[in-house]
């Protein structure tokens, strides 16, 4: 099948590649770029493990062709740590609040939470639950993911994080 040349920015770096028009963005990221943090859980846009940030929106990269991302600015989980290599507030929140177990949904969850906090820096529990409802986690039951995002929200806003009372 004829291949198309594409260029885009991923985690701040210009990248390019030759892809078939049918190549899914998630496969381009994982296989052409070798960035395997973005995962595939269902291939039908339900689970959100493949969520990346494209031009300021959360996108499930299993349901977008790589050619559709031509010229876009993408952030993946590999681009989430602080510039000095330390964990970002969100990554730290997931670790501190035990917001992950097997780790398979985590990159997608973190990417979705990243955009959610950009849209709303101090979301309520209900807003967080609604905001991550496109991402499935099979391990945690979400309660600690909510706390992880609350932790990050507090840290980003420079306020003390108080765990919600049980």
């Amino acid at each position, binding site marked *: 099948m004829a291949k198309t040349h594409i260029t885009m920015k991923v985690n701040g770096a210009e990248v390019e590649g030759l892809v*078939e028009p*049918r*190549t899914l963005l998630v*496969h381009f990221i*994982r*296989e052409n770029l*070798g*960035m*395997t*943090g*973005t*995962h*595939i*859980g*269902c*291939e*039908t846009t*339900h*689970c959100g*493990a493949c969520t990346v940030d494209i031009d300021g929106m959360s996108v499930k990269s299993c349901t977008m062709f790589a050619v559709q991302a031509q010229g876009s600015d993408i952030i*993946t*989980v*590999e681009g*989430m*740590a602080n510039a000095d290599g330390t*964990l970002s507030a969100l*990554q730290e929140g*997931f*670790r*501190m609040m*035990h917001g*992950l*177990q*097997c*780790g*398979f*949904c*985590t*990159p997608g969850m*973190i990417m979705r939470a990243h955009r959610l906090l950009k849209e709303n820096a101090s979301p309520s529990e209900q807003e*967080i*639950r*609604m905001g*991550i*409802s*496109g*991402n*499935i*986690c*099979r*391990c*945690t*039951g*979400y*309660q*600690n*993911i*909510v706390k992880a995002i609350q932790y990050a929200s507090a840290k980003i806003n420079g306020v003390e994080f108080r765990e919600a009372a*049980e």
Partner: protein
Amino acid sequence: MNDMTPTREQRSAALEGMGCKRKRVEDIRFTQGKGNYVDDVKLPGMLHGDFVRSPHPHARVKRIDDSEALKVPGVLAVITAETLKTVNLAWMPTLAGDVQMVLADGKVLFQNQEVAFVVATDRYAADDGINKVIVEYEPLAPLVDPFKSMDKDAPVLREDLAGKTSGAHGPRKHHNHIFEWTVGDKELTDAAFKKAEVTIKEMISYHRTHPSPLETCQCVCSFDKIKGELTIYGTFQAPHVIRTVVSLIAKLPEQKIHVIAPDIGGGFGNKVGAYPGYICAAVASIVTGKPVKWVEDRIENLTATSFARDYHMTTEIAATKEGKVTGLRVHVLADHGAFDACADPSKWPAGFFNIVTGSYDFPTAHLAVDGVYTNKAPGGVAYRCSFRVTEAAYCIERAMDILAQKLNMDPAELRLKNFIKPEQFPYHSALGWEYDSGDYHTAMRKMMETTGYAALRKEQADKRAAFARGETREIMGLGVSFFTEIVGAGPSKNCDILGIAMFDSCEIRLHPTGAGIARMGTKSQGQGHETTWAQIIATEIGIPADNIMVEEGNTDTAPYGLGTYGSRSTPVAGAAIAMAARKIKAKAQMIAAYRLEVHEDDLEFDIDGFRVKGLPEKFMSMKDICWAAYNSVPPGMEPGLEAVSYYDPPNMTYPFGAYLCVMDIDVDTGVYNVRRFYALDDCGTRINPMIIEGQVHGGLTEAFAIAMGQEIRYDEVGNVVTGSFMDFFMPTAVETPHWETDFTVTPSPHHPIGAKGVGESPNVGGVPAFSNAVNDAFSFLGSTHIQMPHDFWRNWKAAKQLGAVA
């Protein structure tokens, strides 16, 4: 001592040992997308394999034509049963003593069964090839309803078993019968029912569902023709068993097979068994000489690898008028699908379903399980439970509620009346188990007090009265569940897999600087073993958990173990860790005695080193002992500080818990609201309370899914109608209730650290709590039992059938 000398509390805290909410070491890589899962493995020249699958649930395969497929650019080979026959692998043995087609051999027996394996340069080309493989089928009558499996005129599913009147577990009564398994005293039980003052009988179904971890089953197989070695990266909960099975069926020397289970994206029982994809990828690698990757997609996962449950349990309890149980009689019809591929210990065709007497002191019981074939996917895995324990817990917990309803007693009171008493432990159950320890009354009363149970019952009574007066359309249910699990398989006297006893293992090596490595026979799929195993070592030998690296999953370097499932890791491998650590500690004591110039009996262990009794200043830290182990050991002693333990547990462990679900249901829409869910778990000694709480949250969420909607459903002609996340209920953060957790601690008396295991308790105890809440809500309208799953539509239907909706 100066001010800088750490206190005992500080020294103890620095270890981050047992009881500490230690943050997980795994999270550093997982939160940065640096985990290494099977689909992340990329080998030079790697090919991709994918399956042609059957659209028919039951059909004869007349012809497979791969000529057009082989013309597709990138397609290198199409493997069929005929190819596999040349290496004697068209069929494979199952863990349950049956055989299973790897690729359709003359017939297909379930929808989406594997028919041919297309090998290509990438996954897109493999898909192109699949579309060009022509398969000609002759459809046959499908058998979907297990209750019709043993009808006289039922179609013959397994032609390979023609004339076989017995199987791996005794006589077969019919051509679609697999086994009958009976336990208990039938005569005594029948007699108890004859003289019973009160009896109940109900057919309680636990529907077919699926573990569905977020990462599907997958592997990369790489055969090195020069060395004759096969390397398999795979999503394996039990990598050592996989290597032994591959060695036995592929006739490859075991030392030339390298099985590596890297990071695993959830298992829940889905990744215990061996699937056609593994065999086909291995054969494809041998045929092509290149590494071959197989990655299941979600639809394949839900429809072809390993369903769970599908138990139909006719349950009877005999009791006195006062509510004292006198007998239990259960008959199970078990739908195993097309092949008996249950992942149970080999001698247990229905797993440990004979834990069905639960937490209650039944003087007598009898159980019979009939396994049958249908045109459905094979499996029968333990989806977040020890083998068939969730079915058993659901059966007895539902039945106790039905009995309470008949006696007009409160379900919690009925349970309290029949609990095994603390002084009865170790308790011998009527169906053959020896319960290790328990204090059920304390746990139940703590649940009732914490939740304000009596007040909730009062509120329910008021709401029912209001409903009767037409003032509300909402009904309220309280779901009580008190479960006893049996986990930690298991003692070699009753547990093996294909003849291998179900021990587990740990190997610890400490290095001169006071740091070391622990290698394990288990394999974490999210349980956080790298974190918790180091905590056990930290407490046992006084080396900080941060200084211990835990490694699992590589069969070349890890000691042989049976893997992680059935909540066996802590009961079995956790014990092996403690035993290996104690061997190290004993040697460390001898080294310390030599260095401190005292007799070793004059030393006592003190948090992170040995101290001379009565001389507190004479102390040698474990860190210093590690150094000494490599340069100044007592004369005659071998240097080094290393130990291995293979632990064969003397008994299973029996975690338990008291759960309460408070639910409101709108009768006009069937919409439910889980207002409150309280879970008290007793898993014995608690290693990491943070991880325990996380396990409970996750298990409850899976229980919620199963009870309230998650189902693998077939239509009447054998089509799977819940084969994607569109139809298969997968709760998101919005539907998932808030979880309240609590605990009591009753250590296991036979386990070195008293731990019992917890990962599966919330699923085992959670399902009956949800279902009892729904059933309790509807009970005052005259129903005794409504089958799961309790989705909105079924709730509405129940309300309508009971006359609550016009």
